[in-house]
């Protein structure tokens, strides 16, 4: 009887200890609030945009892929080469404009904390975003590049396959980073997510949107 009691107690202890020491994702992410906006809505004035230190996270669960978040939180890299607000980082040097190096997020989390923070961030979803819209599969890369480079000139602002602008996030590894449904939604209406973002709304049909989404998803 006593033996059984001890066994039950030991089992209960084994189950309780990890739960007691499990990281609180919400508390970890709360610390990110000194730079990132963790609650909506997005800012609506130029002054507020210029004061922005880091991208908004209040729809992180709609935007990001969880696996990427877990890795990034342990070892953050620079995604926006000219900083979150390009206009704050340019200066005229001699004959051309140059960009001061973007500050990197210095908060490196342990594997456990990163997993807990990612779990929490994935709960921050936009309820109105349509899911299942992006159809990722076979696509013509040549057609996609024609649209992306020649017609829409996305490389004017984004670095694509190592070449392009610096004022917007790099497309290096973007396929690992972003949820294709969010990409579809953002390209279709950037101002829905960020009313003052400098990416303009484009009138593209679904076939063109799928080409862009597929190309982005392939960049891993």
């Amino acid at each position: 009887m006593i033996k059984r009691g001890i066994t039950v107690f030991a089992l209960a202890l084994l189950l309780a200890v990890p739960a007691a020491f499990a990281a609180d994702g919400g508390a970890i992410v709360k610390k990110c609030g000194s730079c990132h906006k963790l609650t909506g809505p997005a800012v609506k004035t130029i002054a507020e945009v210029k004061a922005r230190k880091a991208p908004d996270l209040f729809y992180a669960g709609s935007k990001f892929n969880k696996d990427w978040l877990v890795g990034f939180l342990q070892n953050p890299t620079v995604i926006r080469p000219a900083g979150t607000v390009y206009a704050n980082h340019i200066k005229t040097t001699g004959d051309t404009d140059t960009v001061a190096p973007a500050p990197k997020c210095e908060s490196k989390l342990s594997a456990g904390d990163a997993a807990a923070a990612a779990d929490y961030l994935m709960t921050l979803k936009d309820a109105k975003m349509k899911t299942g819209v992006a159809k990722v599969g076979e696509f013509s890369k040549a057609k996609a590049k024609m649209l992306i480079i020649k017609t829409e000139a996305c490389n004017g602002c984004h670095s694509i396959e190592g070449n392009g602008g610096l004022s917007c996030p790099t497309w290096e590894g973007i396929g690992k980073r972003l949820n294709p449904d969010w990409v579809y939604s953002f390209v279709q209406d950037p101002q829905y997510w960020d009313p003052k973002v400098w990416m303009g709304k484009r009138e593209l049909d679904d076939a063109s949107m799928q080409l862009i989404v597929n190309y982005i998803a392939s960049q891993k």
Partner: protein
Amino acid sequence: MKKGFLASLGIFTLAISAFAASPALAVEDELGNAANNYQLYCSMCHGREGDGKGQLAETLEVPPRNHTDGAYMSKRTDEQLFKTISEGGEATGFNSAMPSHNTILQKEDIRGLVKHLRQLCNCKYAK
């Protein structure tokens, strides 16, 4: 004494209202906003100084317009400039790399940008 204080308060309020409604100040505000908008939405291609030497200029197939070029800019009407900013390059026969801004900026913001362009080129439309 109380009447004197109220009269002073009234004059002070009127003076503040007149200052706030001053057309000169309104124009200054509009151009100040326009300069900020220009830095945020235009400078990456057209350059911080508006000279077409933005950081992205070399990555684009068609060079961005030099807004300080008075000879060229004086050939464009304010309406043409407004439409290009609002609806994008293709709407006025230029390159699609110039995106539309009518979903980002209000009409008054775009009108402010047109005025800012006229400051950069130090020119008006000349037939």
